[in-house]
């Protein structure tokens, strides 16, 4: 399946845009998403940490993804 991944902050710089499309096996989880992204964008491995949000919630590692999900990469936050 193809999922669309939103990017913010440093992740936007790394992806070179505010979203990227990623090919994943059907029913991939967030760990597989991270692996695929890090393969395409090795600089992702250099940031302090990052989380995956699915449908506006922080996602656990074993959460299964679907093409209808709103998926986002959340680098270390720094608001306030």
């Amino acid at each position: 399946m193809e999922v669309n991944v939103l990017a913010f902050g440093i992740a936007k710089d790394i992806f070179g845009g505010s979203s990227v499309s990623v090919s994943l096996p059907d029913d991939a989880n967030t760990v597989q998403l991270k692996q695929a992204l890090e393969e395409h964008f090795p600089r992702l491995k250099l940031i302090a940490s990052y989380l995956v949000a699915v449908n506006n919630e922080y996602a656990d590692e074993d959460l299964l993804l679907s093409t209808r999900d709103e998926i986002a990469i959340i680098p270390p936050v720094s608001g306030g």
Partner: protein
Amino acid sequence: MEVLIELLDGPLNVQTCTQWVTSPDAGGINVFIGTVRNVTKGKPVIKLEFEAYKQMAINEMHKIIKQAFERWPLKKALLHHRTGTLEIGEIPVIIAVSAAHRDAAFEACRFIIDTLKQTVPIWKKEFFEDGEVWVAAHP
């Protein structure tokens, strides 16, 4: 639970915020105001830029305020956060909390800013004379 949470693109106003949390059954209001500092780790800062994952940021801010109401007997709570470009001295965030007694107001306000900085998807870029950097992005 009277709550006002907003992500705003223009200047934040302290008076508006404290007036909103004022309540005839509250005796104390605590307010935290973040301001853009002219230096970070000894290096002069020119300006900041804040980017938010808007809907998720609003959701996370609501979760924090809900937790605060569960932990302390609050009357009202307000959270305003800026996006966009901010100059030195401008206000990225205002948190205002009212309660019958001051202990709850102080503790809840502190909890809200501390948790916001850990969980709310908002990112700050610092601009220096010689470049720019996403805060906390790298180890």
